């Protein structure tokens, strides 16, 4: 029988911690996104000076620039492997936000809760919800920062300018409709980050937090390097999505289908949760504490 009071108390605590414990880290998030805006501005101004851009950049253009990712990398000794700093920093900073919360909770308050709780799964659900809220807050703070920047210096609309996106994000926005944009630039990056955060949390049940962070960072770098549905970092790069790649008119081009990506992300969260349940059942809390 589900005990709603016990369940909601645990969830409430984890939601509260996702805001309260990370409040200073969200300040760093603001600084990071301001740096992204500065980076955008530097590139935008150089293109304007070259006469390649005429329109004023919008909020939509900046969001697309920050989260567009990179095209499929072709391994070649003469081509330096570089991951776009905006995409990479977002993924790596989330590993810091998620941090060692589950490990710390397991040895403090969570330890007492697990020993006394009717359902240990409530505790794990709370941790998954912590990951979801942390990622949502991160992206919300990021979007708010970018919106304020565009309100002050650019145009705060979601309208995508053909020349700005073409020069800076290397995307032909005429092939995208509003649903492609929302799914590719907003939904998939957030959802993929949630899956990575949950994976890091579940991994921390087995490894030390520092090792789980190293694993996630290596996985993120591998996602940028290799194109594969098994490397879910590919899902958060709109430059690798179906419409953008097909527009490039390469017959054998590989691409990510956004619908398939959403389904796989959803399944992964469920699978990771059940792996976590199995691990918490076998976990020796008393010895570890």
């Amino acid at each position: 029988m589900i005990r709603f009071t016990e369940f909601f108390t645990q969830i409430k605590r984890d939601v509260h911690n996702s805001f309260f414990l990370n409040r200073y880290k969200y300040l760093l998030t603001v600084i990071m996104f301001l740096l992204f805006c500065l980076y955008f501005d530097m590139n935008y101004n150089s293109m304007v000076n070259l006469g390649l851009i005429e329109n004023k950049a919008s909020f939509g253009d900046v969001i697309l620039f920050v989260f567009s990712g990179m095209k499929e990398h072709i391994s070649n000794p003469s081509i330096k492997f570089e991951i776009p700093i905006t995409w990479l920093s977002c993924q790596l900073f989330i590993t810091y936000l998620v941090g060692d919360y589950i490990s710390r909770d397991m040895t403090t308050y969570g330890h007492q809760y697990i020993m006394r709780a009717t359902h240990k799964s409530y505790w794990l659900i709370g941790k998954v919800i912590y990951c979801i809220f942390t990622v949502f807050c991160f992206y919300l703070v990021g979007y708010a920062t970018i919106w304020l920047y565009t309100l002050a210096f650019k145009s705060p609309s979601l309208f995508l300018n053909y020349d700005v996106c073409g020069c800076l994000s290397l995307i032909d926005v005429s092939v995208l409709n509003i649903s492609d944009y929302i799914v590719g630039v907003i939904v998939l990056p957030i959802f993929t980050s949630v899956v990575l955060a949950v994976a890091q949390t579940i991994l921390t049940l087995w490894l030390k937090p520092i090792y789980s962070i190293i694993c996630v960072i290596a996985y993120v770098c591998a996602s940028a390097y290799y194109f594969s549905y098994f490397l879910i970092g590919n899902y958060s790069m709109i430059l690798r999505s179906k419409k953008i790649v097909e527009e490039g008119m390469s017959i054998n081009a590989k691409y990510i289908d956004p619908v398939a990506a959403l389904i796989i992300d959803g399944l992964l969260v469920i699978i990771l949760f059940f792996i976590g349940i199995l691990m918490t059942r076998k976990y020796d809390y008393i010895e570890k504490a």
Partner: protein
Amino acid sequence: MNRFLALEVKRIIHSKRFLGVIFIGGFLAVVQYFTVGFKQRFPLINWSGIGVRYPQPWYEYWMGGEWYSLFSYTFYMIFPLLATATIGDTLVSDRTSGYLRHMFILGERKQYYKARFISAFFSGGIVIIIPLLLNMLLCAVTCPSVYPQAATGTAPIFTSSMWSSLYFSHPLIYTFLYLLVDFVYGGLFASFSVAIGIATRNRFLPLVFPFITYLFSFTVFSAVGLYKYAPFNFLSPSQRVFDISFLVIVIEAVLILVPTVLLFVWGAKKDETL
């Protein structure tokens, strides 16, 4: 201090994390060798019908000498995490467990903190150097050790790069000098993380703070177009960007060293554990 140093060194060598971190670095080194270096072991194969080509020396495709493989990128991206993982949070955990009190009974606080600094520095440097040396040796035993040639266009170092004349005339000396730079930076990151542990009670913060600083510096300098100032770009012997300056490397090392030393001095004076 020698007694403390011996105790700390013994602790580090026997710790599972020290072995774990070397294993991670070694794994990256070995996989990089098999995906990049191993393919170069037959250098004189007929190339595109043009004939025999000048063999590519191992200096151009060992893990530190190239900039196009995933494993080289990943190694230098997790560089601070590898350096701090062994010892970063030990001061915080020692304070919590009461181990620090026992140490202060055995000798002076100043001597203890000096020993911690030295042991942290060397542990951070060693966990960085061992995978690089492993990869270097793997490449060197199977691939040619001829001089790199600028005319082949395969070398990652250009005339405007730092120590370029040394790279083309004495590549092994160049490589070892750069390994020394990586050793020093690994040691500084590790000491810095232990120093953070003096000022905080959070076990996780000392482990990740150097990495967050590293990532932020990469973001900041990329955002303003000053790529050569980011440690991620200048720590790799392949020099990921142009115009890297040794002065910048030294200044940034000093910028890490100064707060580290100040925190250790402050900790030695103000620690109220006993």
